[in-house]
């Protein structure tokens, strides 16, 4: 029997970054709010305490902070005619779980999009002509501009205590920063950390080649810092247990270290953990959301009525819940009709392993998810002339090194013995003297790349898994080859004894076994009208105006940057409109 809870003003599904932002916004406005989180409660103490968190096997390999795939995973296939099979073990991407979501175990690379990324189709058509965009590429503009989002990017950076150097301050190009970024209204709130050794070598090589390297914008705070909400972050010590781990030092921005502390005592907010939402409920008109159904930690089915529904789970889960709830028309790649699930995209990563002589001390264990890293943006977005290159998009190229954790991150030249005495000698020779340089590249959206419900496989509750249909297209092979070529050239100038560049070559299929990136996007995209999108510029469902959907599910195509800055900017932009307009007069915020 379903238990029915007392109605509240708003229910939040998923208590990660965007759920926390909306919990603050709505409780600030005096609403009664229930936040439902599928995973357990988690906080810095006791869950991420030193020394227990410095455990590579438990957190970095087994993934004790990740969503347990045994209960729910996704299925994946390469083409629309194929049969999808389950993603049975972690590989290509990592799903978050619990309070804070993937915001607990991210790297903290906090980027904004480039201005042209937000008006991509128009920009490409104007610069290169309409025919430059392949017929099956379904990219589109965001219905909101960089200038409109800028105050919200700025605010989120201040919430997170982001370290960096401004490259474009109110239109003035500044030395040491990213000359390609859109104009910032303010400096970064905290200064960058000094470069780790691989980043120093990268900086020098990039300068020799005439590129302008700069510190990766880092939500691993470099100093003790108090954010606009009065929450304190501490300085990062480059501990090497960052991405895949919770931060024991309160340095890496996460919902726990930036927003949740001020919500803890709010009487108008209740957080229910281990609560797995199975459906968004609708009234008979199917134009009004009336709440949600979830399964609580005792396995009891509960109905939570609410006047407003905030869908703020991970990108894939947002799309799955829309499909499970029958909200919107599922996208059909054959007819091209329907919108839910449309424009799934990913990112294409390349890496160069640089193997130095034994007198070059890389100290690979000194590192963080973002702090101490250096990057160039010359070959990203439309910062370079694509007219003779035959592709759209690009990559940022960065010198990272996030901890040299030996089970996962041991790098050896491919001609080293796989095992045996030769392997044992090779790990000694290379471990302290090698480093990865990476390229993180955009992926466009296509008619035959989308999300739907799997017809066969079910989760622990008997509900269909989400099915991903995805593979690379020629545009991305070309993009990756271009980025990898530039990266290879920079690494050569770093003068390693040996270097090996791994890029996804033309014709290779998407390989789900290898970790690439968790930056999955699309499926509930943002757009200018109900015929091209699931949500409007304020992240409001066109079809169900009291439903708001947040996260990278809104991206119409992917960018060559880490997505958290953009998705948080879109969330704060929506939050301001809800506070100023919607709560006074609920209804569609964009006329149709």
């Amino acid at each position, binding site marked *: 029997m379903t238990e029915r809870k007392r109605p509240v003003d708003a229910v939040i599904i998923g208590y990660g970054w965007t759920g926390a932002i909306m919990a603050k916004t709505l409780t600030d406005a005096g609403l009664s709010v229930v936040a439902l989180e599928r995973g357990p409660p988690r906080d810095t*103490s006791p869950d991420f305490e030193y*020394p*227990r968190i*410095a*455990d*590579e*096997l438990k957190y970095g*390999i087994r*993934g004790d902070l990740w969503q347990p*795939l*045994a209960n729910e*995973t996704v299925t*994946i296939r*390469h083409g629309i005619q194929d049969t999808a*099979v*389950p*993603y*049975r*073990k972690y590989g290509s991407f990592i799903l978050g779980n619990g309070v804070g979501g993937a915001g607990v175990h991210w790297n903290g690379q906090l980027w904004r999009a480039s201005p042209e990324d937000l008006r991509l189709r128009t920009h490409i058509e104007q610069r290169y002509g309409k025919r430059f965009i392949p017929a099956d590429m379904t990219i589109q503009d965001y219905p909101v501009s960089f200038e409109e989002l800028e105050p919200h990017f700025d605010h989120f950076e201040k919430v997170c205590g982001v370290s960096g150097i401004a490259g474009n301050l109110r239109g003035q190009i500044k030395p040491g920063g990213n000359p390609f970024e859109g104009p910032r209204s303010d400096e970064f709130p905290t200064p960058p*950390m*000094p*470069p780790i*050794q691989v980043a120093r070598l990268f900086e020098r090589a990039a300068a020799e080649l005439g590129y302008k390297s700069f510190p990766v914008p880092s939500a691993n705070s470099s100093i003790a810092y108090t954010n606009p909400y*009065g*929450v*304190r972050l*501490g*300085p990062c*010590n*480059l*501990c090497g247990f960052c991405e895949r781990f919770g931060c*024991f*030092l*309160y340095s890496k921005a996460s919902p726990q270290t930036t927003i949740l*502390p001020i919500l803890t*005592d709010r009487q108008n907010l209740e957080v229910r953990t281990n609560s797995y939402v199975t459906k968004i409920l609708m009234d008979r008109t199917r134009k009004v959301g009336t709440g949600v159904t979830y399964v609580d930690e005792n396995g009891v089915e509960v109905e939570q009525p609410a006047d407003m529904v905030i869908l703020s789970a991970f990108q894939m889960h947002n799309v799955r819940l829309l499909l499970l709830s029958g909200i919107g028309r599922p996208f059909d790649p054959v007819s091209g009709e329907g919108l839910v699930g449309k424009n799934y995209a990913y990112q294409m990563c390349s890496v160069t392993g640089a193997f130095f002589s034994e007198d*070059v*001390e890389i*100290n690979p*264990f*000194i590192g963080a998810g973002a702090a*101490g890293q250096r990057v160039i943006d010359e070959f990203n977005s439309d910062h370079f002339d694509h007219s003779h290159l035959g592709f759209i998009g690009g990559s940022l190229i960065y010198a990272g090194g996030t901890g*040299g954790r030996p*089970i996962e991150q*041991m790098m050896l030249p491919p001609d080293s013995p*796989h*095992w*045996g*005495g030769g392997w*044992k*000698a090779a*790990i*000694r020779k290379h*471990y*302290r003297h090698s480093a990865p340089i990476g390229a993180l590249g955009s992926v466009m959206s296509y008619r035959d790349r989308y999300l739907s419900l799997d017809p066969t*496989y079910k989760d622990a509750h008997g509900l269909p898994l989400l099915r991903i249909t995805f593979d690379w297209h020629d545009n991305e092979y070309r993009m990756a080859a271009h980025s990898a070529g530039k990266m290879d050239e920079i690494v050569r100038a770093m003068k390693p004894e040996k270097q090996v560049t791994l890029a996804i070559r033309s014709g290779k*299929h998407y*390989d*789900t*076994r290898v970790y690439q990136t968790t930056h999955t996007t699309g499926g509930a995209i943002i757009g200018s009208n109900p015929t091209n999108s699931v949500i409007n510029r304020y992240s409001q469902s066109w079809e169900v105006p009291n439903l708001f959907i947040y996260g990278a599910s809104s991206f119409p195509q992917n960018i060559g940057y880490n997505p958290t800055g953009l998705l948080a900017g879109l969330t704060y932009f929506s939050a301001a409109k809800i506070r100023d307009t919607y709560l006074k007069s609920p209804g569609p915020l964009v006329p149709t």
Partner: protein
Amino acid sequence: MAIPPLLDRRRLLLALAPTATVLLTGAGACTREAKKPAPYAPTFFSATEWAFVNSAVARLIPAEGAGPGGIEAGVPDFIDRQMELPYGHGAYFYLKGPFINDAPATLGYQLRYSPREIYRMGILAANVSAQRTHGGRFADLTTADQDRFLQMVESNAVQFSPVPAPIFFAQLWANTKEGYFADPLYGGNRGMTAWKWIGFPGARADFTDWLDQAGRPYPYGPVAINGARS
């Protein structure tokens, strides 16, 4: 403006955290691992399986040459203990059917088996196969034949059923590396010898003193989660 109590607690923890690190890495701690641990009695592996695991690990990371071998580092003990944990039982994986056995390799693991089952069936298949190709169980072969046989397993040059040889090999090698490099907490990496061999400082996790020393060799040895130093 009143500061919520949580912020006070946070500030306190913040102040304490580096101290805790110093204590753990400080000169006072001297918990050394015993030089000669008592022989480990396996819980999961049978005697025949245990002989296989020990002889395979001894070839995957041999004792010969400089640096610790897998046996000396306690890798077989680590693997046996892992088999009794949720990982060994497959609790980390989605293992619901149907199982499609002709899916592209790029879509990842598609068998129904837990790591325990993979060892049970893989070791049996390996011994049967070694008997056929080299005239004895794996553990009884010469080390040169063991190396040749493992190469055949890795490269799918021997037929195993129902667990394909490369899948069995991949699990064995992954667990071997885990046991070599994981914190000693799990029974492998005994005495942190594998960390010392490569120069990884383990759970030290505080490089504040090296932020401005990039490029200079880091001078301190490893520390384990339980505070042991080496």
